[in-house]
């Protein structure tokens, strides 16, 4: 399509402004993590690496980071197992209530986090009489992580179809051999992309976490929220935020690379 010079300039400006609006504040957080000001005042009066040193030895921050990594890893593993099983069930078989199951599986990602949070909090504490902690956070995160894996794998199964598996079976391979040699290699990158997205989703989740974490376990987002307005903690929060940005960007970048190479 050909565009006139004016509309080209207009589009460029709009794009630049939109991207600036999204990324300048993030850049400010990165700068603040090196600021000499204790209250994140703007512009930064000077630069120092003091907060990075402090943050990286801060027991609360470190334990929050490891908690978040463990929770994200555990809920991703659950999501991979359940999401894959679900997508195979919904793609390969027809059974009573199939479309209902399909809807119910995808719904958690659309439900407001606060509703999921309240509901799970209630269920865990009053109905199941459980202590809130590691287990409840991981289960809560898995409810929406399953969706990302399911979506990725289901879309892949649809695209690949069943003819490759028929060919494999026709050539004498049993069900497991076919899965190992044909099906799995076909869905591997979808599993990887779904897993990474699910990891990133769990890693920065705060609403559902607030309702299911109890008082003993602190994930990174909760640590940040708790410390943001405490005296002298603001620069440490900025450092932790930068760490989060890094941990979140890498998987998303890899996931996107994977999907684009697949489409080629």
């Amino acid at each position: 399509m050909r565009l006139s010079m004016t509309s080209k300039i207009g589009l460029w400006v709009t794009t630049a402004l939109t991207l600036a609006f999204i990324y300048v504040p993030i850049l400010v957080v990165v700068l603040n993590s090196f600021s000499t000001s204790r209250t994140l005042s703007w512009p930064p009066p000077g630069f120092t690496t003091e907060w990075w040193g402090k943050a990286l030895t801060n027991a609360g921050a470190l334990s929050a980071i490891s908690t978040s990594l463990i929770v994200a890893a555990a809920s991703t593993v659950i999501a991979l197992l359940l999401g894959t099983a679900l997508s195979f069930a919904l793609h390969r078989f027809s059974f009573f209530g199939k479309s209902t199951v399909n809807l119910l599986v995808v719904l958690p990602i659309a439900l407001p986090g606060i509703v999921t949070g309240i509901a799970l909090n209630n269920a865990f504490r009053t109905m199941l009489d459980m202590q809130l902690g590691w287990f409840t956070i991981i289960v809560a995160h898995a409810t929406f992580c399953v969706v990302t894996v399911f979506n990725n794998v289901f879309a892949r199964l649809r695209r690949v179809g069943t003819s490759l598996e028929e060919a494999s079976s026709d050539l004498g391979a049993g069900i497991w051999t076919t899965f190992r040699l044909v099906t799995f290699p076909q869905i591997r990158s979808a599993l990887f992309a779904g897993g990474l997205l699910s990891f990133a989703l769990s890693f920065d989740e705060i609403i559902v976490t607030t309702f299911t974490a109890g008082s003993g376990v602190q994930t990174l987002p909760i640590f940040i929220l708790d410390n943001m307005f405490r005296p002298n903690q603001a620069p440490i929060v900025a450092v932790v935020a930068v760490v989060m940005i890094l941990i979140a960007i890498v998987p998303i970048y890899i996931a996107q690379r994977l999907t684009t190479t697949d489409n080629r």
Partner: protein
Amino acid sequence: MSTQPAIRLTGLTKSFGSVNAVSGVNLDIAPGEFFSMLGPSGSGKTTVLRMIAGFETPTSGTVELFGKDVTKDAPFDRDVNTVFQDYALFPHMSVLENVAYGLRVRGVKIDARNNAARDALALVRLEGYGDRKPTQLSGGQRQRVALARALVVEPKVLLLDEPLGALDLKLREQMQVELKEIQRRLGITFIFVTHDQEEALTLSDRIAVFNEGGIVQLGDAEDVYRRPQTPFVANFVGTSAVFTADEAKAVLGHKGACSIRPEHLEIVRGKAPAGTIGLPGTVAETIFLGASTRIIVDLDAGKRVAVLEQNDLNTTDTKLGTKVTVAVYPRFLAPLT
């Protein structure tokens, strides 16, 4: 037949919901036969093939392979292999790995299976292509890989599901010759599904014409072409002028419904030759086909017929609206049941 049939289908039926895709097919296919299932899409031929391969379970009826009932066996337990319409090559494997796959899952050591795969590639004239990925091949080459992959495990019966459908005309004609050669050389039973009547006539020892889930006619190419038994066959395999019993009586003075091929009609000037039925009419349309011309004639008796005239030295000059006589040779009238 003295020998045991390679394939015996008995009362084979497949319903999807309330729809009968295949109903009550009985069929014996001899070892070493090149057998075609010919029919329009939705006629049930592919479903029959998939039931022989084991991808579909019959609603009722049985499939026997050399006397052994395999109706309930999984595809990987059957000694038949399939060449798929879309080839179904494994995209993450090289051509050699694709061809060697059937031997790999049978536990054949890597050197032995790669050698066998190279031989199979040579058989389909693709030496030296082993290291490529399927995506780097043309349609015709993929087709050959699919053939080599199915042949390498030495099946007793090879099923081919419209294998040439995606190829252009020249390539298709070349592959037809090669398929026939390979089949003759290896002596395997080929079951070939196609909707292309010319392909079926060219290749097959016998043809089963399918329509609406059943076999409407079974015979060799000449049988099916020269003596179509139903109006459907008369017009699906080639084209014919079809006369109902009443029309035959009124127009031809012939008893019983019948059909006749365009190439068995002749346009004559003046009186029809002795022993023929002369039908006066008017030329309604002429279609030039190169070596021949198709002339559509509206008979005065109120029937439209097509005449295929060779463009040889004796071509008659037939302009639109010309009054002509169509000569019918009664021995070419094929009775319909």
